[in-house]
């Protein structure tokens, strides 16, 4: 009923007739249960809770809410506690946490509730959000709606599969090394990773306390902007949260790409990606120039170390949070996840301090050098074509570790730098899978990223492209 519709279009349908709302809700939950399960993308729905939320917003009659009645579902890392002591599962996509429940409601989920959205359930995450292909033996490996023998990418794989299928317009994901942008890119969506500190992580299952971020995956830039507007802002319960004046993203995004300066770093990003992916990025760079952006070749110094050190920081902090359960319940973990978490247990407290201190200096250096020259820079998202589910299913060995390092080549350094970025779909590869590029901005320049993304969205008309469901 709301398939492939935007937030605005869904609200229009609801305002036409109150009965439409309950039909929409019923149909959305049915599709999550049917298509979502076929794609291995659904963890659970909660129809009773969704109807309760629907009745509540209609009784309050606050029709100006930005997401009034819009059904959504999110990655399973976002906790929800219900009234009367009940709560939604909080398993982190892992058998090791089977039957564990949420002990609070995530801040961003509360903000979406207040904005009038209806929370229908939770979508599959890679185990502990620690993986980039989307494989999950326990919760299911989501299939890419564009070609079901291919991966969705991870770790917000369920969110990407469900939004790309057109069941809901947007879903939240988390991004620690590319986990919003990689699946968004593999499934032909916009994936926005905000600046470190813009969006609260309170109540979100942690992977890396320094690097985790929360962002939307959506079929349109407008829907990403709407959700970002709602979830942005200072939160005293998140120690990395920053107080800044939040721009009106919907107004800003319409200002166009003209006069925004965009850099193309050939070192590392293009050099480390396959030719087809690099060529695609250069092509989009030329289109930006044609649309009126200032373009310039740039070099990002010493970026090579950011990938390795980001891996070390993630595994060190994952080990700090999850070492106890990883040792006690190691038989309940997928061996790859266990390997990734345990590779952080050897980092001493002195090395951890150095790791964090070095990162701050590194960011200071890069931010001052790069963003004196340009406002944004462009890179590929995936460094290679999207792999099939079978070809990317490795055991816990060096080959698997190499694959993870390679797939996160273009996204992981951006988390290390704490910068905002957006993946933008623009075409298809030889296997019928979407191709995308990534734009990276200076700190808190989400408004500029959305401006550029909105211009490119109009150019590529990706909104009209739909997978066969």
């Amino acid at each position, binding site marked *: 009923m709301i398939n492939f519709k935007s937030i605005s279009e869904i609200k229009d349908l609801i305002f036409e007739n109150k009965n439409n709302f309950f039909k929409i809700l019923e149909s959305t939950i049915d599709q999550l249960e049917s298509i979502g399960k076929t794609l291995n993308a659904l963890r659970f729905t909660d129809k009773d809770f969704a109807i309760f939320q629907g009745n509540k917003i209609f009784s309050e009659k606050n029709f100006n809410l930005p997401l009034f009645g819009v059904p959504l579902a999110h990655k399973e890392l976002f906790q929800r506690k219900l009234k009367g002591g009940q709560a939604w599962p909080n398993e982190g996509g892992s058998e090791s946490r089977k039957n564990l429940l949420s002990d609070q409601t995530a801040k961003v989920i509360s903000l979406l509730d207040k904005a009038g959205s209806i929370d229908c359930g939770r979508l599959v995450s890679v185990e502990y959000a620690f993986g980039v292909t989307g494989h999950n033996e326990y919760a299911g490996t989501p299939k890419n709606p564009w070609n079901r023998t291919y991966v969705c990418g991870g770790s917000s794989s369920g969110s990407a599969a469900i939004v790309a299928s057109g069941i809901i317009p947007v879903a939240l994901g988390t991004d620690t090394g590319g986990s919003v942008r990689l699946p968004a890119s593999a499934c032909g969506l916009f994936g926005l990773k905000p600046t470190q500190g813009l969006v609260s992580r309170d109540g979100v299952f942690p992977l890396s306390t320094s690097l985790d971020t929360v962002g939307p995956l959506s079929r349109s830039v407008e829907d990403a902007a709407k959700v970002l507007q709602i979830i942005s802002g200072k939160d005293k319960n998140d120690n990395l949260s920053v107080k800044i004046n939040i721009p009106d993203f919907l107004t800003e995004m319409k200002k166009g790409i003209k006069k925004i300066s965009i850099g193309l770093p050939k070192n590392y990003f293009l050099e480390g990606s396959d030719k087809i992916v690099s060529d695609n990025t250069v092509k989009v760079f030329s289109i930006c120039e044609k649309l009126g952006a200032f373009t310039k070749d740039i070099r990002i110094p010493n970026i090579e170390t950011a990938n390795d050190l980001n891996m070390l920081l993630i595994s060190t902090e994952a080990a700090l949070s999850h070492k106890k359960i990883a040792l006690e319940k190691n038989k309940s973990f997928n061996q790859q996840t266990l390997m990734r978490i345990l590779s952080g247990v050897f980092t001493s407290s002195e090395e951890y301090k150095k790791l964090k201190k070095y990162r*701050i200096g590194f960011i200071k250096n890069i931010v001052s050098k790069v963003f004196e020259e340009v406002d944004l820079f462009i890179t590929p998202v995936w460094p290679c074509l999207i792999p099939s589910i079978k070809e990317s299913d490795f055991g816990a060995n060096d080959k698997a570790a190499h694959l993870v390092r390679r797939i996160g080549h273009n996204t992981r350094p951006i988390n290390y730098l704490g910068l905002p970025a957006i993946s933008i779909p623009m075409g298809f590869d030889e296997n019928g899978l979407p191709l995308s590029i990534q734009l990276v901005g*200076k*700190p808190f320049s989400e408004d500029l990223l959305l401006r550029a993304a909105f211009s490119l969205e109009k150019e590529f008309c990706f909104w009209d492209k739909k997978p066969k469901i």
Partner: protein
Amino acid sequence: MVKNVKNNYHLKILNELEKAKINKELIDNVYGISKKQIETLKNTIIQDKIPDTVQEVFTDFLKKNKNDKF
């Protein structure tokens, strides 16, 4: 099994992993990956006069660029 480990902290952790009955091949892999990454860290040099947090870096950057978001 991992051999010739002289670092006491690493020995302690390896002992914990063995006690938890982690697969020996996995311990080898994990230790190998960890050593490579820590080696990268050892080769880094911390600059003088850097802020205490990433947020401070961002705040300074935006103030210098006369951004009105603060």
